[in-house]
């Protein structure tokens, strides 16, 4: 079965931002550390949307608790966390209360991949709000690849006219200048101990 698109949290936040910070979407947690990833999602949303982001656990919240949580306040961003998975009955009861959950701020459903089927089968009203907006939490990106690191080292070496090894020797002897390019050079060589 084809899978949904993998997107880093930054891009997901960007999608919500261009919508004017409204609407619903689903982010699937493929495996890995549910809590850490949720913290990162929350931080990224906060950075891009420039508004507070709250996490609300769907289980074991009641109708009253959820309604209150989603409307007080109404316009921040909320991540509704489904944890490791929700039972069909829970999806049915969430679906019935869809109107009570509607709000002006964005809603991100943070779900286990198995929950997509339950959402489709037992929560058609909520599914209708989401449209095609399903994303698998992808790697954060921005992490410098090995090729990029090597390219940068090459540029530094060519510009200053000496090799990485010479740069390290100079640093060890206290002869390397303290300009920020040399600091970067040492960091990229994993010689932060010489900084």
């Amino acid at each position, binding site marked *: 079965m084809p899978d949904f698109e993998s997107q880093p949290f930054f891009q997901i936040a960007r999608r919500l931002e261009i*919508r004017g910070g409204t609407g619903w979407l689903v982010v699937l947690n493929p495996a890995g550390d549910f809590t850490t990833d949720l913290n990162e999602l929350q931080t990224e949303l906060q950075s891009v949307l420039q508004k507070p982001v709250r996490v609300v656990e769907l289980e074991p919240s009641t*109708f009253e608790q959820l309604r209150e949580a989603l409307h007080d306040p109404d316009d921040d961003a909320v991540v509704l966390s489904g944890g490791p998975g929700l039972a069909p009955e829970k999806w049915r009861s969430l679906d019935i*209360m869809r109107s009570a959950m*509607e709000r002006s701020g964005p809603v991100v459903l943070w779900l286990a991949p198995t929950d997509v089927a339950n959402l489709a089968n037992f929560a058609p009203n909520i*599914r209708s709000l989401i*449209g095609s907006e399903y994303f698998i939490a992808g790697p954060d990106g921005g992490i410098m690849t090995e090729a990029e690191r090597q390219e940068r080292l090459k540029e530094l070496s060519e510009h200053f006219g000496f090799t990485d090894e010479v740069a390290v020797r100079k640093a060890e002897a206290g002869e390397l200048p303290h300009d920020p390019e040399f600091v970067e050079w040492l960091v990229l060589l994993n010689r932060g101990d010489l900084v």
Partner: protein
Amino acid sequence: MPSSIAAPEGQLSRRDKFRAYMQAFNPTAPAAEMIEAGRVCEDLHHYLFRNLAGRADLEPGSQQLLVGGVGSGKTTELLLAGRWLLGQGNVLPLYLDVSAETDLASLNAGSLLAAFGVLLGGSVVRDAEARAAESDRLQKLKEAHAKITEYAYGKEVKRRVEPMATMAVDPALMRWVQGYFVSEKVPGKLKPPLPVLNRDLQVTQSPLNEFLTSVRESSKDVVVIFDGLDRLLDAAKFWSVVHQDLRLLRRLKVSVIATAPLSVLFGVGVGQSISDHFDKIHHLTVIPSESAGASLSSVLERRRGTGLLPGLLPYTIVEFSGGVLRDLISLARDAAEEAYVSDRDSITLADIEKVANQLGNSYLRGLGPEAIETLLKLAGTKSIDLSKPENVELLLTRRVLEYSSTDFRVHPALLSVIPRPEPKRA
């Protein structure tokens, strides 16, 4: 809600253009806001709302159901009906989304009346205050409102716990000896349920009569519009919740327009017995793109979507939506979002196909092999057996769309991704 972007389109930055588009294509925006902003095509369902409103106005006490699938535009039709009624001048229309007010899962007899009574009472009291009605009359109305509010939301009562004479006198237990008061909450109809008692409904009649008399004194009739009841996907559950309340409302000559689940029309067993209780059941069908493509496309145009949707792309979105209004709006928005994050200046066919694919996948998830076989058969033969509950489920979850009572099709976005069986080798 972000502020509207009002500069002429030629002067808007790329970001502003997309932002303005997104504002217009928000599938979660309240229907009332879209109507106010002039973004709704009132003739999309051939002015069905006028039929609803007209009968409710001309036949006090009439009861009509509006039945349609998820995302078919029911709330919009109801609000348009309410607005039309208001415009007549001789009707007090009251709109209520019951599912927003209370947990429908625990709804029982009396709940609709309670919600209606609170809304009506509030309106009547406010009107009396504005008219500076005589104080006795106003007081009576306020008491009636308080009574119905208590019925709806419950109350806190103080109950005396009598002293327990056999207990030893102990300073820490003094209050047990002397007796004391406790506060207890008595739940109401719109809170977790009480046992169903038919006589409960009679409690509401007196305050409701009070309000209705007040409204009718100004030569108005009351029409109540109940939205959200379609969320009770099961027809039997729907009926068990509403039938007593609706019976009383008919006696009170209050016209009712209510949404109901599709299973009322297509469910096994209960459908006909429910239908017989209503003066009219309106079926808000899915709009077929081959005959109403221009109308559906005008939905996009109305929201000024064509600026980012060049050429015939609006029709592609219409095709993939299957005529489901909310899917139409979602696809239009999602495609724009895709174009934006991909750094394009307008939506392309690839963007639309990508989001349609995602939409199809979201419908595909959770389908077993039998369901897929049913859908493929429907696509090939255009026939589906709705006497089977599992097939009605496909309807309720929008994998199957109803264009009329005899025209059923697989949602086009789903059809585009559904796995076909390997052809058998000779």
